[in-house]
């Protein structure tokens, strides 16, 4: 399977140099006879192997064919090799599948079936190629009126342009544009103070709120953000407490009960803040900050 370079063959075989060289040369010759450029692809090479070896296409001795295939593609350059290597890998896989033991009554799908289908398909296409080739030659041998072979399209001349020409061209274009339509970014700063004011008013009335009370359902993003920042700020300075029992749940907001009349916060909400680590809890943080 491997080809032995002449100088190596002399030492390995221990034969008279002349004889060893001819043997090695023969080996080299036999594995390099076929030029791969003569093949139009791995299937072509495979079909040629099968034809040369007079193999029944429906019963391919995969081991032998895979070995010969590998031997022939050894001469390939890497660039053209990819398609051939893919086929080589396929052959080796089929070879491995063929070697797997199989039971008597087991339903067995021949791993070569797909390869045979492709080979037959390829062979059919080659027959069509023969027909086309014959017809093309037939037509080639007769001239029509004023037949001119396709002239190769000349490459485009390199662009000759000086910097000043380019700049004046840009200037012309900019002038031609009636009014450059620049996009205006309208500054819409967050309004945290008024959000804080709103929350303070609400919490003064109701002592206990939810996030949905603070922010309208269809509020624009800047209002949502303002409210959120305002809320966190108020929690930080200890004016109120914020708790979200679960991720994405509504946020409970309440203030400390300094006034007797203020209603108690919900039992579970207060309890959760101390017991559940998963809750988003700003109470501890706010008390530390304060």
């Amino acid at each position, binding site marked *: 399977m491997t080809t032995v370079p002449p100088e190596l063959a002399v030492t390995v075989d221990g034969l008279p140099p002349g004889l060893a060289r001819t043997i090695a040369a023969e080996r080299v010759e036999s594995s390099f006879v076929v030029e791969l450029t003569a093949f*139009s*692809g*791995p*299937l072509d090479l495979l079909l040629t192997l099968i034809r040369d070896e007079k193999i029944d296409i*429906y*019963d391919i*001795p*995969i*081991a*032998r064919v895979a*070995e010969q295939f590998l031997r022939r593609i050894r001469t390939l350059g890497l660039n053209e090799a*990819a*398609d051939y290597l893919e*086929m080589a890998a396929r052959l080796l896989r089929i*070879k491995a599948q*063929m*070697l797997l033991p199989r039971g008597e009554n087991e339903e*067995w*799908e*021949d791993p*070569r*079936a797909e390869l*045979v*289908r*492709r080979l*037959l*398909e*390829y*062979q*059919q*296409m*080659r*027959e*069509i*190629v023969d*027909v*086309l*080739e014959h*017809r*093309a*030659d*037939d*037509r*080639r*041998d*007769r*001239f*029509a*009126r*004023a*037949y001119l*072979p*396709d002239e190769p399209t000349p490459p485009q001349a390199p662009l000759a342009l000086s910097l000043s020409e380019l700049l004046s061209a840009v200037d012309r274009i900019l002038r031609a544009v009636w009014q450059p339509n620049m996009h205006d970014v309208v500054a819409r700063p967050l309004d945290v103070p008024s959000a804080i004011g709103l929350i303070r008013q609400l919490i003064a009335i109701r002592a206990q709120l939810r996030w949905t009370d603070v922010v309208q359902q269809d509020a624009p993003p800047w209002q949502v953000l303002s409210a959120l920042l305002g809320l966190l700020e108020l929690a930080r300075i200890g004016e109120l407490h914020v708790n979200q029992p679960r991720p994405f749940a509504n946020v409970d907001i309440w203030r400390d009960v300094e006034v007797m009349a203020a209603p108690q916060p919900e039992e579970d909400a207060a309890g959760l803040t101390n017991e559940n680590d998963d809750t988003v809890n700003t109470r501890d943080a706010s008390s530390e900050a304060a």
Partner: protein
Amino acid sequence: MTPLAKLLEAALFASARPVPLDELAALDSDASDAALTAALQELKEHYDTDSDGHGVELVEIAGGWQILTRAEYTEAIERAQLAARPQRLSAAALETLAIIAYRQPIGRAEIEEIRGVNVGGVLKSLHERGLIDVVGRAEGLGRPLLYGTTPLFLEHFALRHLEELPRADELAVALRHMPAPIADAPSVEAEASPE
């Protein structure tokens, strides 16, 4: 020759491309299709038989009619550099064309599946030569381009129409409806003892 046959001869002589019958009809509004066909036949016979034939012949190609020189004079004409035969297509190009001719409209992936090699470059050069064209896009992922053959393809292969190619089931290896006699009795001995 009849006046109509002479008119057709002049028109076909003037044209470098095959001229379809409906375009020939524009030459003489009085002539029926039957009269045109008869005149074409007359011209063809005139070239073929009249005092041992002419140096040119009338050929039906790509859905039209064209006057071509006879094959036996090609050598001499080319040697005198009066005209040059076009380049032969490469094996890769012919294989790709064969697949497209029979399976059109067909996408690149399917061609590569049959040929077992990348065909991007071949498709590009066939397209540049005008032998194939994009005829649509497939459904499915990426909406791949679908290719088909052009009238120039018919001209290049001297085909009257695509149906002139042998039908798939006329080929020695009929394939699409291949039976599967492979499953029984595989030769195990060859696998067990690789040389």
